């Protein structure tokens, strides 16, 4: 399949020239095309922010909902119709800040969705304030003395919650990003792909070169080894290094829609199942 299938006509893109979002969009389209996912079977769910505009630039179904809330509708869409491929994609502020509670509990719930997070360590659409992943000391018009808060470590949180797939890539390597996205979509269960990305307008510290200098590909790591994965995830807090690749996979977790018990003998989406009125009459007769 050609990635052009995913390019809509006549779109006016709101991203800044040189933004990492363009690279992520391209890698995502290539991944989708290589996986032969038909646009009519794909639902992109996003929140609010520059990254969250990505569904606007894709030819597919989409639910561009509220700030921080992408994971909730994404979970429900997939659970109500498991034939759909569902990707929840937004920025670090949306997923880790405004939507932090949903991030935690969606991991626990383990829906069969792919969660892609554009992590540029800054707020773009609101013009340059700190994000949950901004490094300590990062100065902004709000954090005038520099960020005081400990940066949110999404990989460590996800592994601590036994997320079924946890990976990080950097858009400084688009091919690696595409390969990881493909693995994440193929994985059955919740998968997190945190994508490091420069913000050319508001982040003059964590630049393209900065990511090249601080990120490195993981070697000789068994992603089924949760403790080793956690050690890798802690590196960014301990020595500022950002390991890239699949940190952790738990293949034994049952995806939410299956655990919920409505698809054991019937794989059809819920809307195709008629109400059993005879059963309802029987239930009413019990009162």
């Amino acid at each position, binding site marked *: 399949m050609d990635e052009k299938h995913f390019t809509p006509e006549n779109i006016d893109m709101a991203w800044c020239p040189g933004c990492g979002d363009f690279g992520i969009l391209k890698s995502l389209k290539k991944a989708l095309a290589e996986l032969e996912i038909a646009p009519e079977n794909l639902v992109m769910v996003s929140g609010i922010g520059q990254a969250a505009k990505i569904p606007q630039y894709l030819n597919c179904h*989409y639910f561009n909902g509220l700030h921080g809330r992408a994971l*909730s509708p994404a979970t*429900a869409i997939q659970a109500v119709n498991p034939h759909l491929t569902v990707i929840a994609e937004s920025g670090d502020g949306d997923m880790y800040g405004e939507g932090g509670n949903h991030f935690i509990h969606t991991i626990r719930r383990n829906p069969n969705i792919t969660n892609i997070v554009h992590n540029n360590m800054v707020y773009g659409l609101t013009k340059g304030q700190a994000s949950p992943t901004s490094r300590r000391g990062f100065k902004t018009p709000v954090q005038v003395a520099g960020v005081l808060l400990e940066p949110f470590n999404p990989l460590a949180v996800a592994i601590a919650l036994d997320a079924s797939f946890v990976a990080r890539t950097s858009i400084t390597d688009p091919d690696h990003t595409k390969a990881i996205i493909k693995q994440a979509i193929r994985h059955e269960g919740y998968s997190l792909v945190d994508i490091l990305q420069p913000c050319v307008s508001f982040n003059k510290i964590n630049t393209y070169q900065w990511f090249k200098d601080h990120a490195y590909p993981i070697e000789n790591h068994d992603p089924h080894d949760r403790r080793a994965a956690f050690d890798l995830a802690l590196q960014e807090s301990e020595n500022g290094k950002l390991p890239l690749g699949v940190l952790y996979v738990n293949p034994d977790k049952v995806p939410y829609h299956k655990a919920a018990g409505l698809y054991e003998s019937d794989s059809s989406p819920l809307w195709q199942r008629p109400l059993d009125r005879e*059963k309802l009459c029987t*239930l009413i007769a019990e009162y």
Partner: protein
Amino acid sequence: MKKKKPQDISLVLVGPAGMGVQTVEQVLVKVLQSAGYHIYATKEYMSRVRGGMNSTSLRVAGSPVRAPVDRIDLLIPLAAGAVSHVAKRLSSSTIILGEKALFEKEIEDGFRAIDIPFSKIATEIGSKIYSNIVAVGLLGALFHVEFQLLQDFIRKRFAGKDQKILDENGQALQAGYEQGARLAEQENVEFDLKPDPNVKKQMLVSGAEAVGLGAIAGGCNFIAAYPMSPSTGLLTFLAKHGRDFNILVEQAEDEIAGINMALGAWYAGGRAIASTSGGGFALMTEGLSLAGMIESPLVVHLAQRPGPATGLPTRTEQGDLDLALYAGHGEFPRVILAPGTLQQAFDLTGHAFDLADRFQIPVFVLTDQYFVDTYYNTDRFDASEDRVHHHFIESEEGYKRFALSDSGLSPRAIPGHGKGLVAADSDEHDEFGRITEDLDLRVKMVDKRLARTKFLVEEAIGPTLWPQESDSKHLVICWGSTLPIVQEALERIGRDDLGLLHFSQVFPLHPAAAQPIGKAQTRICLENNAGGQFARLLKTYADIEVDHTILKYSGAAFTVEEIVTRITEILD
């Protein structure tokens, strides 16, 4: 309304949480219903798991009873402090039955108390835990329930237990029954009510269950909710029956997730209900606004309790009408339904799903703690008619989710059904659903969203007038759960010139809603809140003013006697 007074016994059980008040109640009401008595029960309870003092008020009658009364004919206190808990409701005609040592200090002179050593009898049989069964036996005898009926019921309820426990339960029941027979003989305590054979064919169902059955009948297949009194009953009901009816039931991490999941479910072809109380609904308001923007169907069950903030978590109020009416930023249409009877709860909840789906709007089912926790016998709900019709289409290529049309309704498609692509965007959007900042298009989209209001007015359920087609000189106006209480009060007053107008749809109003009000000389609006919110709604949306409001906001429901007094004060 014509004068009527039901022949009934008001029986009240009082005890701390966890003391078995519920066991006595559950067994007793089933047995009394089987014996052909009309049953009404409501409860008030404290926001705690153990201890405190809770009460269940039952009315047992030969004709339908559906409202709480202050009067107590028979009080069963199960612990010290129980009599004081209901002191205001006692009179010289109240009979207090129980272990006198527990409450002797709490009764004033002139009150009649009969000592029944429940726990002594139970202990002699084997254990104090049989006290509740002794009480069931005694009460069964007082209402002339055949012993066999009681025995069969108890055996069924405890089926599968140890033989020793079954035997001892039987002995406890027998001992209680003998006590009852003794009371009838020696103390002249006896209740002669005429059973009604029709009652056995009816169902005994609570407000929460009626909403739940209505949701199933409306094709509900998704609920994601955060537990919150008094809305939790619906969540547990749907959880219990979820697998039988293909309902996906999830406990959401918060109400924000709950409503956003509900919208995701509708987007993908599901039929979802969001269920909560005031505080939880406050968290949902951004999601409600999203439903408005993406023209998503949504059913919201809002079970009211007194606020602001945490308020009185287990008490009742009709204080969130304004919240339901104005919640959510921006302008978008909505419907608010407020059942007054269990039958209406069943019908209107099913109807809510259909309205939401047809007009792509949020529809509220507004109940309250009093309503969801109250039950009585009512005609069995009829689910034989197919009420579930999907109103989405199979999409074609080039499908536009928000196609402009004169009616304001754009055919709704869902992903995975047809060749088209389905977009939903919380930003202002074009016909396809893509973000736009075209201000001319913005105007068209707002007009389109609001144009559906005309359908909602056309489809609005009008208020019900008693007596039918009357022009009463004096009119009481009420909405939602207060209906049966006002009805009984007006029957007791029994004035030909006094009528009742009840709204089960409070917004938007039926175009002719104000007509009966306009004809009345004295207009009294009765509401379980402090602000007279519905009276304000009538003024704002029907341009009609009431002369008097009867308001209550203590956290308790109105009682029949209270309404009689307050209406009489106005009319005399």
